[in-house]
Structures are given as structure tokens and as C-alpha cells.
């Protein structure tokens, strides 16, 4: 009975993860700016991957589940850092381009 329940929960989590990864891919392709794409990749790198990893409970194998829990912990700690690094780079590039554009228009005036 528990085995069937774990199969169902694992399958549901796998399906949820794949749906989130698909939506994330659509978002990366649809959204035009870096920040929007970062929201989309955050959906894949956070909840999408976590749901896929959590579906490992269906295996009922302690070793696999342990690795999945460790992977979830590391993903939870590292994905915000990578998103922040890209966002900061995009923000600084935007600032620099705005300054360049401002300097050019001042020079032309």
C-alpha cells in the first residue's frame, strides 16, 4: 500500500517538475529581457529541479533518496547565488550603457 502511495507521489512530483521545466523553457524563449529570463530560469533551477529530485522517493532506495536530499540542499544554496551574479552583471551593464548614452547626448547637445 505504502509502495503504491510512494509511486503515485513520486510520479506526481516528476510530472510537476517536468511541467515547471517546460514552462521555464517557454519563459526563457518568450521574455525579452535578462531579468525576465532570470525569473524563468529560477523556476527551473529551484522548484523544477527540486520536484524532479524529490520524485526519487518512488525508488524507496535510501541511498538514492539521500543523494537527492543532498542535491536539493546544494541547489537551494547555489541557485540564488548564480541568479544574483547574472542579475548584477546585467544591472551594471545597463548602468554603463545608460551613462554612455547620456555622455553621447550631452556631447552632441
Amino acid at each position, binding site marked *: 500500500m505504502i509502495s503504491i502511495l510512494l509511486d503515485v507521489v513520486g510520479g506526481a512530483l516528476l510530472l510537476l517538475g517536468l511541467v*515547471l521545466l517546460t*514552462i*521555464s523553457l*517557454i*519563459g526563457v524563449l*518568450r*521574455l525579452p529581457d535578462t*531579468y*525576465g529570463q*532570470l*525569473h*524563468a530560469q*529560477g*523556476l527551473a533551477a*529551484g*522548484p523544477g529541479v527540486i520536484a524532479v529530485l524529490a520524485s526519487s522517493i518512488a525508488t524507496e532506495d*535510501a*541511498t538514492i533518496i*539521500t*543523494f537527492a*536530499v*543532498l542535491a536539493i540542499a546544494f541547489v*537551494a*544554496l547555489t*541557485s*540564488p*547565488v548564480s*541568479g*544574483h551574479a547574472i*542579475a*548584477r552583471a*546585467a*544591472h551594471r551593464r545597463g548602468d554603463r550603457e545608460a551613462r554612455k548614452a547620456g555622455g553621447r547626448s550631452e556631447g552632441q547637445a
Partner: protein
Amino acid sequence: MPALLLRVVVLTAVYLLALTSLHPGDVLVGLVLSALLVLLARRVGPRRPPPPSPVPLGSRLAGVPALIGGTLVDLVVGTWQTAARLVGRGPTRAGLVEVPIPRGGAVSTAAWGVRVGFVPDTVVVELDEERGRMLLHVLDASDPEAVVAAQHDSYERRQRRVFP
């Protein structure tokens, strides 16, 4: 000293989980490696020690379930809103919002950044510990004051007890 011991224990636990073993030899190697890492981190880390936390360690540990549970709630809500936006049914007024943050030190600021950055509907753009500000990109920036209030409420209820 208790904080150092806690770090050694947590690192050893991660090592043993990665090995999936409780063999005494593995435990010993894990303890030695963890102690070496913790000592090395103290030597190569910042010279100025962090100020002592005003909250006792036991109280901080008791706040961990609320921190993890609350962050999971934020994650579910943020995931829903982001997914709705990406399929074209969510808020469309995305933008940057500056959030004032308390100057609680580097660890508190980093914890705030990781907690907020983990949720897909917010992206941490800048974290300025010295000026006490955090620049966020949010999917719904139509009411910046509401965003700031929500962030402060989340900090008070989830993080303040563990990382003040």
C-alpha cells in the same frame, strides 16, 4: 566555541550523507576533515570576527523550522505567480524595487539574499550591506511599498530569529 563545534558536526553529517555510511572509520575521517576545514576557514576568513549574535544559539536553532517552512511557503506562492506570468496570465508590471534592510552583518545580509533569491518571482540584483539596501527585480512592481512591506514581514516572521 559551540558554533565551531556545530559547524564540524554539520560538515561531518554532510560527509557521511554523501558516503551513505556510518562506519566508525568514515565518521573519524569526516570529523578530521571537517575540523581541518573549519580551522582553515577561520585562518583564511576575514580578520575581523563577526559581532556576537544577540540571540542565543538554542533560540536560533529553534527558529530554523519556521525559516525553512516559511521559505517553502514563499517558494510555492512565488512558483505559482512566476508560472502564471510565464504562460501569459500573471502580472505584467515587472520592475526594480529598492528594499531597505537592517544592518545585521554579512551573514544576515547573505541569508536574506539566499532566502529571497531562492523564490523565482524575486531576483536579487544588488545587496549593499553598508548602505543597508537590497535591489530586487520583482514580477509585480505596480506597488513598490507593498513589495517592501511584504519583504520586511517575511524577514520578521521567518529570518530574524535565526539570522538577525
